């Protein structure tokens, strides 16, 4: 078990190195940061000086190595645009994104599983069919359009919910600002959370439904019925549990996707999180911010992957091949 985790962590590090390399080589095509940083009256000497200062005159592998060395120490350099440490900027922005992602994730998982189970058990019912049809809309509408529609209905027409920003936040501890503790903060979360989580919710729902239908046809479900177990026990203790095994992988990856896709939602709702930070960084070719953001996202994906594997282990006894085998 421990050997397995160590092996997985080792693999994860390699994945991160590759991601960093790819990200770094792509930045060279985004543009030259020096153009943005110096005004119109720049001289060739100014440009050279700045390049040396930023280390951009160094060969690519050296730049990459320096970046990795810094990252390992939690130092992602200084933002070209704001002139402050990237780590600080991201730490300021992270709570907004994480709180949004958390609410969306909880929404997507709970509603996704509940609706998936419902539509599988009542698959011939009218309600289930309506939900399935609506879910097609949820899957096919682009995120920004859903956001704009929600803003139009609830902020513009009905005027009940705010259309942008985080509302009032409260500082908790040294690094964290939360929107959970104020009414305006909670209200501000509703529309972005729905926008961000809707796609994942429909995806999880459709997956849970099809897996559940598959499981309900299995012999052991038939046998559970033949043993006279109640519908509730058959559906939830026996069928749902087996349904969740394959659902976990996809759901885990979707959580990573929620944070990654927060970029679009944060842009639509002007949500002050890391996604919006990244979009602004692209416009300014703020390489340290972009690099740090991409590394963080990959760390996130890799970590989620690892957790998913371990969960698999916990849920499915057949994978626990260590020790006793008959």
């Amino acid at each position: 078990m421990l050997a397995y985790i160590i092996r997985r962590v080792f693999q994860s590090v390699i994945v991160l190195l590759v991601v960093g390399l790819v990200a770094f080589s792509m930045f060279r095509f985004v543009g030259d940061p020096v153009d943005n940083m110096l005004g119109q009256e720049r001289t060739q000497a100014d440009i050279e000086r700045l390049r040396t200062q930023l280390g951009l005159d160094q060969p690519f592998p050296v730049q990459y190595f320096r970046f990795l060395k810094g990252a390992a120490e939690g130092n992602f350099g200084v933002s070209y645009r704001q002139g402050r440490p990237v780590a600080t900027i991201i730490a300021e922005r992270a709570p907004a994104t994480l709180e949004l992602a958390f609410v969306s994730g909880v929404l997507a998982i709970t509603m996704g599983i509940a609706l998936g189970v419902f539509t599988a058990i009542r698959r011939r019912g009218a309600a289930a069919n309506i939900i399935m049809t609506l879910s097609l809309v949820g899957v096919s509408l682009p995120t920004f359009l859903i956001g704009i529609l929600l803003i139009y209905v609830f902020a513009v027409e009905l005027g009940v919910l705010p259309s942008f920003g985080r509302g009032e936040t409260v500082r908790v501890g040294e690094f964290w600002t939360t929107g959970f503790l104020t009414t305006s903060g909670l209200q501000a979360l509703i529309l972005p959370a729905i926008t961000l989580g809707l796609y994942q919710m429909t995806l999880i729902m459709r997956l849970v439904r099809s897996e559940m239908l598959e499981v309900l046809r299995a012999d052991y479900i038939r046998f559970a019925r033949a043993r006279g177990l109640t519908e509730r026990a058959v559906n939830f203790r026996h069928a749902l549990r087996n349904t969740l095994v394959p659902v976990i992988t996809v759901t885990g990856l979707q959580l990573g996707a929620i944070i990654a896709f927060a970029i679009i939602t944060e842009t639509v709702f002007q949500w002050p999180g890391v996604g919006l930070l990244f979009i602004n960084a692209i416009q300014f070719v703020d390489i340290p911010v972009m690099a740090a953001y991409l590394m963080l996202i990959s760390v996130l994906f890799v970590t989620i992957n690892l957790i998913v594997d371990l969960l698999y282990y916990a849920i499915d006894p057949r994978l626990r091949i260590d020790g006793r085998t008959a």
Partner: protein
Amino acid sequence: MAISPVAETEYKGSAQPEQGQQPTLSVRDLVVEIPTRRGVLRPVDRVSYDLAPGEILGVVGESGAGKSMTGNAVIGLLDRPAHIAGGEILLNGKRIDNLSRRDMRKIRGKEIGMVFQDPLTSLNPLIPIGDQLAETIETHLNVSRTEARKRALASLEEVGIPAAAERLDSYPHEFSGGMRQRVVIALALCAEPSLVIADEPTTALDVSVQAQIIALLKRLCREHGTSVILVTHDMGVIAEAADRVAVMYAGKLVEIGPVRDVLTHPNHPYTDGLVGSMPAHSHGQARLRQIPGAMPRLNALPEGCAFHPRCPKAQEKCRHAPEPELMNGAACWFPVGEDA
């Protein structure tokens, strides 16, 4: 409770058990229908039989004859769109074919147990076997969790799982196929039902353990006085375990009677064919007799006796007269042995 001798000797080729004794199960003119776009199929067509307490009734016939459908109808587990379209099913004198879903659920597992063909897929892979037993016991008997665990252990010991106490928390994949079928049998019997339906309980098993499983089933049912419907397409299993045998062909019961009589003197030409294809009955011939042709599909049943295209004794009457009814043990105009 000892097995009643009734089944073994008393009646010759009759579908009725001894007068006066209430049968455990009584199936009367059972019809199962499946509506399809091209008309209604009848996988079970007016099947009747009685099952005495403690009796083992073997049900044989080729694949598709309607053996499983009959069993599923009795336990109320027909898959849509198949449904009971006629007849009655009585369990210990009470009608059960018209019960609500809820009442029928309470009978399943408690009064009728079931053993399926494939022990590898019958058990939930994610739940320890002890828990699967305990949940069944708790569902049907009004006992505490601890008591249910205790009874779970007792039933595992009864089916011969070695070191049962340590195996309660084992998962199904930690057992061999034969051991898993023992667990399945424990699950079917743990609430002490009066009837067990075993649908091809050994077909998926290794030949070396088949006999053990049949012997186990036979012993347990004798000890508990449980009646058994033993579905199989293996005449050898019937000869080994059953008291009476019912032969099905294309949805109909074509012959029923005590095993010894049917195996030595089959009345219906189809039974004769099945018996002739048993290794022990081929009298050293190098090649087993096989019934030529295949069973007709339900949507293309021949007129008259459904067996006539394959029957060596078929005559004009078989093709055109209405199908023969089950009388004196066989549904045939010209039973084997009558003209000999």
